[in-house]
């Protein structure tokens, strides 16, 4: 078995309304892209936030890149994990360049390196350098999302968490962004976990699938395997209905 980038063992998480994840055990392969697929309420977004310890498991253990989640200096640990979200969540008071580089500056990286890395990421994402001085509200949704991805990758993370970053975009912008993203991901060789409700997107971007429903894992495995041998009717229906 290859090393697991993300390992859940018997993980449960409850909020006031009830269990959102119920006894989830997972091992997501390093160096690959895993798509966590499910409807809203399936617990997919919660599982992602357990991976960067925004939430903590009520039961079970989470190991990231072979290590348990540290008790102290969580924020420094999180800097090793990239994060992008639906709607991008850019800081509205900072221009594009500052949005991308804020964390690098706070980390105390060399400014020449920051400058060079920021330019390289923007190039890769097809963002013209004059956009660097613009404020986020002047960008299109697709551009904002590209900036969000640059920000997530700025510190060269080993793990990248994506919470439906492509969902709110129009189809044309989305497809364009898929290509840009795949190229950059492969260049950076970053292990990626993508949360999505869109099985097409999952099949297009991921080599590994986790199907979640009501907080319970329905099936987990390589894309080919899941496609050829759906574990149950739900997985089968998900694949056939959405792809029909």
């Amino acid at each position, binding site marked *: 078995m290859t090393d697991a980038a993300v390992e859940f063992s018997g993980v449960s998480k409850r909020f006031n309304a009830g269990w959102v994840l119920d006894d989830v055990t997972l091992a997501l392969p390093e160096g690959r892209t895993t798509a966590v697929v499910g409807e809203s309420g399936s617990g997919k977004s919660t599982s992602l936030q357990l991976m960067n310890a925004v939430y903590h498991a009520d039961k079970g253990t989470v190991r990231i890149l072979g290590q348990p989640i540290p008790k102290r200096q969580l*924020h420094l640990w*999180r800097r090793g994990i990239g994060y992008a*979200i639906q709607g991008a*969540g850019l800081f509205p008071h900072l221009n594009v360049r500052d949005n991308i580089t804020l964390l690098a500056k*706070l980390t105390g990286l060399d400014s020449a390196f920051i400058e060079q890395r920021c330019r390289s990421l923007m190039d890769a994402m097809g963002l013209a350098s004059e956009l660097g001085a613009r*404020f986020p*509200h*002047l960008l299109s949704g697709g551009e904002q999302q590209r900036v969000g991805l640059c*920000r997530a990758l700025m510190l060269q993370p080993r793990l990248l968490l994506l919470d439906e970053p492509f969902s709110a975009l129009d189809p044309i912008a989305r497809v364009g962004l898929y290509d840009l993203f795949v190229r950059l991901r492969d260049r950076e060789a970053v292990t990626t976990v993508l949360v999505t409700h869109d099985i097409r997107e999952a099949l297009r971007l991921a080599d590994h699938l986790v199907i979640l429903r009501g907080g319970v894992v329905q099936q987990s495995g390589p894309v080919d395997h899941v496609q050829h041998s759906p574990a149950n009717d739900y997985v089968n229906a998900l694949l056939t209905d959405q792809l029909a």
Partner: protein
Amino acid sequence: MKRLIVAAGLLCCMQQPLAAERVVVGSKDFNEGYLLSEVVAQLLEHAGYEVERRFGLGGTLICYEALKHDEIDVYIEYTGTLSRAILKLDSTPPLPDLNAALAADDVEMLGGFGFDNTYALAMKATRADALGIRKISDIVHGHRDLKVVVSHEFLQRADGWPGLVAAYGFDWYPGGIEHGLAYQALEDGAIDVTDIYSTDGEVARYGLRVLDDDRKYFPEYRAVPLVRDDLPEGAKATINALENSIDNSQMQHFNSQVTFGGVSYQRVASDILAQRGIDSIGTSEQGGQMWKSLRHNTLVHLRLTGIALVGAVAVGVLLAVAVYRTRWLSRSVVYVAGLLQTIPSIALLGLMIPLLGIGTVPAITALFLYSLLPVLRNTVTALATVDPVVTRVAVAIGLSRFEQLRHVYLPLSLPAILAGVRTAAVISIGTATLAAFIGAGGLGDPIVTGLALNDPRLILQGAIPAATLAIVTELVFEGIERLVVPRHLLATAARPLR
């Protein structure tokens, strides 16, 4: 040797003013209060004392509390007020009994000036004649439609309206008015009946009929100097020289000179003393001093509001940062700050005398408390309503708690915080005019004095600069906002959605 003696003599002379004992003279905020306190002040100066004047203190409570807490050494009170409003007695006891009661507060009453400035109800004589009203009970029987409007203090005091209700059976609630404005209101016909003081200079001037107190309700209000009992005996003796030296009609005349004769109260005070063979060094007349005092008052005003504002911003923002994450806590804090805001400013100033005395410190404290709410509420609301997507990202990408505040929450809340500071500044500048009531000076000084002396020019000398200051403050803060806040964050609401 001779030279040495001269030098020693000079030294003595030079030392005398330094060694002179200092007496703080307070006054109530109406014309007779200013005038009599000025008479006492000049008399003490004549006798070699160094005098500090703290005139225009806002009402009986503030004056008496200031005296009790050794913030002032002397002011002029009235026996009726003393026994009823201060000592809460039902009647005025003999003088020795009064003094015994005052001793508990380390206060002593000196010999009265000789006149009785009692409360009375008055109306225009022409109107009274037309309606056939001569005495107070005439109003209650048959003239219930008259507009009875009385001064705020009269309305509240046991020996004022509430007692009048008991004695005469008034069964309606009158309006309240600033005493200094009541005469003009009578003249204009805006009101029909008001409370007056029987030595007011306005009685003859406005052709008023003092209504007969046919049930002998109003007690005696003999004017007496109240002093700290530890005031040097020499100073007490000096003040006592005025005992029984002014009668009612003389006092009416003096008051009317100040109110209508265009003579300054300082000048009338030195005239009163001159008539009694005392050649006082009256405070020089104001001429040409207007700009100087305007500058001084404005600076004091800015200092009061500036210090209060800086304190309120520091405490308000820090407090908001401390509580905004906990909903019930931030709600309670904002609620308490809101409660403070509802305490009338003059009451808040009065309540603080036992704790902080009078003058600058309580004034700044009160302004600080008033400024706290807008800053605190705006900051809490702004911090708590930062876009949740942005705050989730701030945590997830690895900003520490402090970095989240410093780089996300506070910059995004800046427009709202600045708006709160701006509101606080404008409120402070307005409220600070009331600081004069507790002797803190500022642009309220000419306003309070002008109200007391019925001098509109003086009122405007405070009101116009205060209003100007408020407008300038608005503009300055607008400029600051433009400088420090990115434009698209300022006008979020006005911007069309993409």
